[in-house]
């Protein structure tokens, strides 16, 4: 179902004109309202009037995650706080998260692009959307919620977790669309099977899954186990949250809602803009955001752009699946995790050796996180309970930073592999295909 035909099927040339006009407006807004951007533009020798069309975007400086963290919490906002109606944030790297704000109009834009996402996934006003994304500072829950309401569907704001209850609600309320991370979808499917519930016989028809990278083979597994069509959705809080792009029923790349978010793909080393169908780093510029406009944000996500027409009729350019990252960020159960976050906790524990290994795996279709830590003479005790308390303490501290449960394993000294160059901090055993 195409929610907004006029916008989603707009002729490409017409949209380019619209994008050019919006880009000029955004650049001027950033220059005038956000000192960080003014400084960046001045250093690059760019004035807002130099940007006349989307082709000129290549002259604008990039914005990075570090820019956001340095200006924590509200330094990148372009409106006074009285106009901010909502704040969301990412999980914090070494304590400081990326904070984003929304005006009333930004929330409307978000609802609009999420209504398109839900439409792309197949649902409309007669559907019942079971929203199993977490509600809170994380953008997933409320993003889906507003979009589902906007499209006129019925939302079940069940949030994540409590899987047996998810299945009961699915049976009793007759949910037709499920929204959650793909790994959680698989977990729900497996749990239902254990309970003897055949999800394929329930009214559930669609699933929109995102917030973590997944593969076509995982899609196939979910589709078969649930008897649904599973659609990939994409977003990040720095741009708006979910709703940046979405697959349609053709399942051939994600339509970027590029009347709101202008995509580019660059070579992460040379920073040159790459032509279509060439893999590189995704970069986004917001075109309509008021509270938190962003110019050429380097997402660190690897993908590519596809500009050939899609049979669905939507004219947005599409991006491929995310194939990886240009930095060391891990996505575990939908949560962004940087090894530096775990390292900072370990460094705060006296007597813990600086050698550690983060072991990520998939157990019963859910991501598991273990942190291996070497024991030193200083913390070693001849009593089990003391060492177990140490494990528990580190687990609690990491959990409070990441918001993820973790198992700490104490290891003998020098058993964690030392490397000659860059230390190997992560062992990701999750299946890649």
């Amino acid at each position, binding site marked *: 179902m195409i929610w907004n035909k006029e916008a989603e099927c707009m002729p490409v040339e017409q949209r380019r004109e619209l994008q050019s006009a919006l880009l000029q407006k955004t650049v001027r807004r950033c220059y005038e309202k956000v000192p960080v951007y003014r400084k960046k533009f001045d250093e690059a020798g760019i004035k807002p009037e130099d940007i006349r069309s989307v082709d000129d975007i290549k002259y604008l400086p990039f914005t990075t995650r570090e820019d956001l963290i340095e200006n924590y919490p509200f330094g990148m906002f372009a409106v006074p706080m009285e106009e901010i109606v909502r704040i969301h944030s990412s999980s914090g790297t070494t304590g400081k998260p990326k904070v984003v704000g929304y005006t009333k109009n930004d929330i409307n834009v978000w609802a609009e692009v999420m209504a398109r996402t839900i439409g792309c996934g197949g649902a409309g006003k007669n559907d019942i959307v079971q929203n199993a994304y977490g509600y809170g500072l994380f953008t997933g829950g409320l993003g889906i919620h507003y979009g589902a309401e906007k499209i006129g569907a019925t939302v079940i704001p069940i949030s994540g977790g409590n899987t047996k209850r998810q299945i009961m609600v699915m049976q009793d309320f007759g949910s037709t669309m499920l929204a959650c991370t793909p790994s959680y979808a698989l977990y729900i499917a497996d749990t239902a099977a254990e309970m003897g519930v055949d999800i394929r016989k329930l009214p559930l028809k669609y699933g929109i899954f995102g917030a973590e990278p997944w593969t076509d083979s995982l899609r196939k597994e979910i589709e078969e186990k649930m008897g649904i069509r599973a659609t990939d959705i994409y977003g990040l809080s720095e741009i708006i949250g979910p709703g940046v792009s979405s697959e349609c029923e053709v399942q051939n790349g994600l339509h970027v809602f590029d009347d709101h978010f202008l995509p580019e793909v660059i070579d992460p080393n040379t920073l040159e803009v790459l032509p279509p169908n060439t893999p590189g780093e995704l970069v986004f510029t917001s075109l309509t955001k008021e509270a938190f406009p962003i110019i050429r944000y380097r997402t660190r996500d690897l993908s590519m752009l596809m500009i050939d027409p899609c049979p669905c009729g939507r004219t947005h350019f599409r991006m491929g699946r995310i194939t990886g990252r240009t930095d060391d960020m891990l996505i575990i159960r939908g949560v962004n995790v940087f090894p530096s976050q775990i390292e900072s906790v370990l460094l705060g524990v006296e007597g813990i050796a600086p050698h550690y290994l983060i072991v990520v795996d998939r157990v019963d279709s859910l991501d598991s996180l273990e942190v291996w830590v070497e*024991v*030193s*003479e200083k913390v*070693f*005790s*001849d*009593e*089990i309970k003391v*060492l*177990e308390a140490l*494990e528990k303490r580190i687990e609690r501290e990491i959990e409070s930073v990441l918001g993820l449960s973790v198992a700490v*394993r*104490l*290891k*003998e*000294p*020098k*058993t964690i592999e030392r490397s000659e160059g860059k230390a190997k901090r992560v062992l990701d055993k999750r299946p890649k295909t």
Partner: protein
Amino acid sequence: MKVKQLSIFLENQSGRLAEVAGALGSEGINIRALSLADTSGFGILRLIVNDIAKARKVLQDKGFIVKETDVIAVEVPDCPGGLASVLNALAAEKINIEYMYAFVEKSSKDAIVIFRIENIDEGIRALLSKGINVLTAEQVYAL
């Protein structure tokens, strides 16, 4: 009357205990008593040996984490109720036992129990006052 015990951190991995025993054996160190406490992830090996300083060095050189702890060794009559009489002596003084392990000494009729308690001096006093035989370190190392 305090006896030195060595504690060694071991990951639950096949062959680790054999490495400890092998390293001590090849240096002529004799194990007098041992216990192994384990969890799903790691274990703590507790040893009483005839030459504690040497044993410690041998193991540390092998990269093991080793800790010395004071424990007490008590002679317990090898008969029904023997252990209870010793435990009652400690319980009467509200002395908590962190852990303990026992072995039967081949040349005598008594069993020997190793106790790790928080306040070791108080423990020794409590046991002696009930007429229980607390062994000296030399006695234990020479067993």
